[in-house]
């Protein structure tokens, strides 16, 4: 099987850089892909994997760097261009047309020319051809079925068939297994194997390391948008890859002193909602930071949004300061002195065209101005206050927040919630996509909040951050709590193991299942 891999790269990328606004997502990344190999891209969230894939697929354009296709320089500045080169991108969320049937989803927009627009579609041929492609993939799907009833896995198969129909030589797969069941994943792998044997080159992104190791020929690790290493699977190990992914020196993290936790402020018991998560129980005490680790899609954000009343839980109970409460919407949560800094800053955390002052007072308007009349000087005063306290870098508090960098935007979101005078803070990926300086400041702030006796639940995919800041660490995997570590027993390896479901021999602090 090794022999099918050619030594000459099919696709090569050199020195690829890309920035969104002020955030540099990719920094001079090199990558090469050979026919007949599965090449996995690994890295923590925000390492730049998806962006790199989208550049190969023509969705984004690199700011710098060059791409070579079969040794020739190639510009891929549009999805159509990528298609012409035989590059097919399977997105994280399937890009299908729910109202159309399977066959149409396979063929539509592929290879349409001016001439073909005037030739009637031969449906019989189209269905037969779709049938053939699906058979080739070994998928039992009716080409006439509407797509909107199909599972994510089936929709992915439809996209794969579409890629096959264009004779794609390069298949880019962005976390295809994120929402698949184990059986569906096995099915997908079987198909990927078969395509590889036929000489297709496959780039594969997954957070599940055991998957990566069972499927890949080579593995490339990215960290903070930078290339770390490319290794043949045989030459590396899960442990080494984890080290490369998280391998920042922990020393640069803010060192906080051991907290002396007070009484329990937030307690949840067998919380669950639909199939997203179930049986989640934990508590957060005054003056401690509880970290919540896990892979993307493990259900951490779902738990947070259930507690905060955005999508209330349907089973289990929540206790705040020892009293059982019902939280149906964020307004109730705020009254109970909860605060939630959401993961998606731009869509959920900020009103981008609003001024800094307008954003920081958003969640407290009723309390600040009980008579209903705004007092802009008071708003500015508060904004100025927090600008100093959190050292937010801006020209003026009347500046719209979309002009600010990610770190400063995040500080605005934090200010907004601090102004509500919360006692329990849920911070969802509080330092994602912000620069190192701002990150440290956010860490300091969290320490400060603990000293003030607030309870902090921090969801983070940044393992060193979780390890450095948390008093206790909860780990979630596939909607359940799969680990609970005290600060002193937690290591990158055993937390990652609990998150991926990958047992690590000879580790102390075995994952305990809680709840």
């Amino acid at each position, binding site marked *: 099987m090794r022999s099918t891999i050619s030594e000459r790269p099919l696709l090569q990328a050199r020195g690829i850089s890309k920035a969104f606004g002020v955030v540099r997502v990719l920094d001079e990344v090199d990558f090469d892909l050979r026919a007949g190999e599965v090449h996995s891209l690994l890295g923590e969230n925000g390492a730049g994997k998806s962006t790199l894939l989208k550049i190969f697929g023509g969705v984004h354009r690199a700011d710098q760097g060059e791409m070579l296709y079969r040794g020739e320089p190639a510009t891929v500045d549009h999805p159509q261009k990528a298609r012409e080169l035989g590059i097919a991108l399977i997105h994280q969320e399937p890009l299908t047309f729910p109202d159309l049937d399977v066959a149409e989803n396979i063929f539509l927009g592929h290879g349409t020319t001016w001439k073909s627009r005037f030739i009637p579609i031969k449906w019989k041929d189209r269905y037969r051809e779709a049938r053939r492609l699906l058979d080739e993939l070994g998928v039992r799907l009716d080409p006439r079925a509407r797509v909107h009833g199909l599972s994510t896995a089936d929709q992915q198969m439809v996209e794969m068939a579409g890629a096959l129909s264009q004779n794609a030589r390069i298949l880019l797969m962005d976390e295809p297994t994120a929402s698949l069941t184990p059986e569906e994943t096995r099915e997908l792998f079987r198909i990927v194997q078969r395509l590889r044997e036929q000489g297709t080159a496959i780039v594969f992104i997954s957070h599940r390391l055991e998957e990566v190791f069972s499927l890949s020929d080579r593995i490339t690790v990215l960290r903070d948008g930078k290339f770390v290493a490319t290794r043949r699977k045989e030459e590396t190990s899960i442990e080494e890859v984890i080290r490369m992914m998280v391998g920042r020196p922990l020393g640069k993290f803010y060192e906080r002193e051991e907290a002396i936790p007070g009484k329990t402020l937030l307690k949840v018991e067998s919380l669950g909602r639909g199939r997203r998560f179930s049986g989640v129980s934990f508590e957060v005490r005054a003056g401690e930071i509880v970290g919540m680790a896990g892979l993307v899609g493990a259900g951490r954000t779902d738990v947070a949004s259930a507690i905060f009343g*955005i999508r209330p839980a349907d089973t289990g109970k929540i206790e705040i300061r020892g009293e059982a409460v019902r939280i149906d*919407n*964020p*307004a109730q*949560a*705020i009254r109970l002195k909860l605060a*939630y800094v*959401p993961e998606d800053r731009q*869509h*959920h*955390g*900020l*009103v*981008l*065209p*609003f001024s800094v002052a*307008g954003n920081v007072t*958003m*969640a407290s*308007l*009723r309390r600040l*101005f009980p008579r*209903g*009349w*705004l007092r802009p000087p008071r708003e500015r005063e508060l904004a100025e206050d927090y600008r100093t306290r959190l050292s937010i870098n801006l020209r003026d508090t009347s500046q719209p927040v979309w002009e600010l960098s990610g770190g400063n935007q995040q500080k605005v979101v934090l200010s*907004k919630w601090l102004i509500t005078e919360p006692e329990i803070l849920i911070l969802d990926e509080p330092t994602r996509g912000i620069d190192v300086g701002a990150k440290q400041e956010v860490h300091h702030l969290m320490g400060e909040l603990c000293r003030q006796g607030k309870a902090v639940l921090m969801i983070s995919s940044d393992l060193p951050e979780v390890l450095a800041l948390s008093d206790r660490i909860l780990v979630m995997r596939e909607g359940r709590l799969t680990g609970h570590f005290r600060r002193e027993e937690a290591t990158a390896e055993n937390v990652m193991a609990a998150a991926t479901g990958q047992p690590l021999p000879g580790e102390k602090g075995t994952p305990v299942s809680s709840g």
Partner: protein
Amino acid sequence: MKASFWRRLLSGVARYPEWVTFLFLVAAFVVSARLSPFFLDVFYIFDSTSYYVEIGILALAMTFVIITGNIDLSVASGLALVAVVTAMLHVQLGLPMEIVIVLSLGFGALLGLFNGLLVVKLGLPSLAVTLGTLALFRGAAQILAGDHSISGFPEWFIGADFVRVGGIVPLPLIVFIGLAVIFGLMLHKTVFGRYLYAIGANEMAARYAGLPVDRVKLAVFVVSGLMMSVGALLKVSRLSVARYDLAMGWELAVVTTVVLGGVHIYGGRGGIIGVVLALFVIGFLRTGMGVANIPQENQLVVIGLLLLVAVGLGILLERFRRN
């Protein structure tokens, strides 16, 4: 150097679209004055306002609706329905006019509530809902009134436009200015106004921050319904009759006014001052074209073009600002 000057000017204009409206106002005034010398007569100008402030009152509420990212196409039909119901309550049921006024305000609010509930509770697009109620309200007015003009209002109620405050300013204009001040204060000076902008600019963020999004949206549609009533009362008072075809096609004029006033059609931005300016742009133009004997139907072209140019310009400026 020069290019950067124009860039700065353009992005300044893009931030404060009211300036464009103001320029339109000056232009409309000049053009109208040139079309006919009568236009410059103060009494003439004031008298002519009585007609279009009814559009303006609807436009004030529409400003709220559009800022939250919705639209209410049913305002004109709703006005006609309230007018007909008002007339029937008084003329056919014989209720005293004072009580009828209160009832018709309540009825308008109810119409707005109907729109609002469909939008908020069923999650339907306001465009489709109010397109439906545009027909439904008009149809209901038609069913109730048939082809008749209903008259028979008390003396004191009719002719609001002939009541001159301070001997010059007609009452409807005073009502409009009063409402504009209230709406302006609500929009720009209160927590409620801030909610409107937040919902229009980013509804999800507003929900995450615990704002009462659904209640605010409902309130906005109810306010729109209330203004249908105010408009209906002024109109019936001015014409002294109610008919099913009152304010036919006015939803266009109302949306045009709001958008010309610099309110962004996708919500989140705009202000009352721009809308008031825009109302007078359209009013002056209409009056000017009127005194120049341009038939009302032909004026449709100008108003329609004005809408397209205003929105198109806004979108192009926005695109420019984003770059």
